[in-house]
């Protein structure tokens, strides 16, 4: 079992996830990724058991890798026209 991550490591992961999430070109995916990151860290902040903290950290690292790849895929195929939610209202 790996050791519990330090506070600095957790914060750095949180920031990386949020920064990557905000790069999604798709409105819904971007909003979801940001929201899920924040809610996920909020829920995990209650974890006391070191092994579950470590597991949550490993999962977060994995999600970051997935997100980094998908940000690229989404940007490659971004539609010309964005969602009405981000279009400047006439």
């Amino acid at each position, binding site marked *: 079992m790996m050791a519990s991550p330090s506070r600095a490591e957790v914060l750095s992961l949180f920031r990386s996830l949020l920064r990557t999430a905000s790069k*999604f070109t798709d*409105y*819904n*995916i971007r*909003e*979801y*990724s940001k929201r*899920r990151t924040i*809610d996920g860290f909020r829920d995990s902040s209650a974890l006391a058991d070191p092994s579950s903290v470590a597991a949550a950290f490993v999962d977060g690292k994995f*999600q970051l890798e*997935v*997100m980094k*790849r*998908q940000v690229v*895929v*989404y940007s490659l195929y971004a*539609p*010309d*026209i*964005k*969602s*009405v*939610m*981000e*279009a*400047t*209202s*006439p």
Partner: protein
Amino acid sequence: MAAAAASRFLRRAIPAAPIRRLSTSAAVAAETSLSAPSGEDEARVIEMKGVKISGRPLYLDMQATTPVDPRVLDAMIPFYLSRYGNPHSRTHLYGWESEAAVEAARARVAALVAANPKEIFFTSGATESNNISVKGLMRFHRARKRHVIATQTEHKCVLDSCRHLQQEGFEVTYLPVRPDGLVDLDLLADSIRPDTGLVSVMAVNNEIGVVQPLEEIGRICREKGVVFHTDAAQALGKIPIDVEKMGIGLMSLSGHKIYGPKGVGALYVRRRPRVRIEPQMSGGGQERGIRSGTVPTPLVVGMGAACEIAMKEMEYDSRRVSALQDRLLNGIRARLDGVVVNGSLEHRYPGNLNISFAYVEGESLLMGLKEVAVSSGSACTSASLEPSYVLRALGVDEDMAHTSIRFGIGRFTTEAEIDKAVELTVRQVEKLREMSPLYEMVKEGIDIKSIQWAQH
């Protein structure tokens, strides 16, 4: 864009009369291409089928299909790139790695419904699973079992399979539902005969979202020794399903309703006591002879990933979807009267809100709501102007059935989208009611049910 410009040029260049056919096909091509006029970004509009919108509509049609989750796509891509092996190839690495991925996906689907992986068979979707269940089971037992029970609110593919069986000489009881959309359990128990082979009840209705009492139905079927089939396409990953607890014998599942890819589904077939079915597809005997045809590894991997995510996220998603449903319903009710929710509000999957707006014509409302992607009911029948047969089975009046709109909320729906949908819906309903003589009469206190429309 070059193609669109070329076709526009062509249309102008070609003389109108003699080559009409050519010019109309060019016009169609120009019409269906999303034309973004060159210039500033804010000037960009989508033009398709004569509708102009300033952006892609906000999507509230999650019962028709859901967007693919990026985590699902991430799992699928390797199987479109280097891992392209046929999972049935036994002689090389390509086949082995694909087979391992398919089996891992099978285990994930099974885990989500508390089944054994050996009870899960991959198909092309819930429609195929429903066909195999209904026709396959009855044809296998054709010597002794001659009767099927299905509710009137089943999906078209179940009802159509039943109709097929009728032509083969089987008898079918189309079970009516109560006004709230739920099955009357006593009526169901009374309808079961000694030669009944199958009871088919949809877990979550696609049009009105009501959740049937699966455990009670399963218990009745178990007591009477009848196989219970449920179409759980809309239920998977949204409400907890336990095939053991619910006494399910056959179950149809779909990939694209749970943020997975389109074109893949699964069929659950109970092993103990064994439910036997006759395959409806002949071929190489894949999926243990139940469903021949090469298993599409990328799609199956996607469905497996979608199930794994659904299992992890079910609680989080359902908390959120419930809150958004409340926000939508309260937002509309606070500003409009004559709003009726179709189907039970209590026994309901909150991601499906089917509402009727009195004195408004549904199709006009849908046309007016072009910035919101919603539908009046099932996507399969959204081309027809007929009111939904599901709403009619509930006993909803013809005029109210014509005004229904189904709002589908999902994992990726935001609060801002709900607020915008409320705003646009309220505005459009008010506009249509202002034009409606019926609404004026009601405001004056005339009971429109008492009006004699035709003189005989």
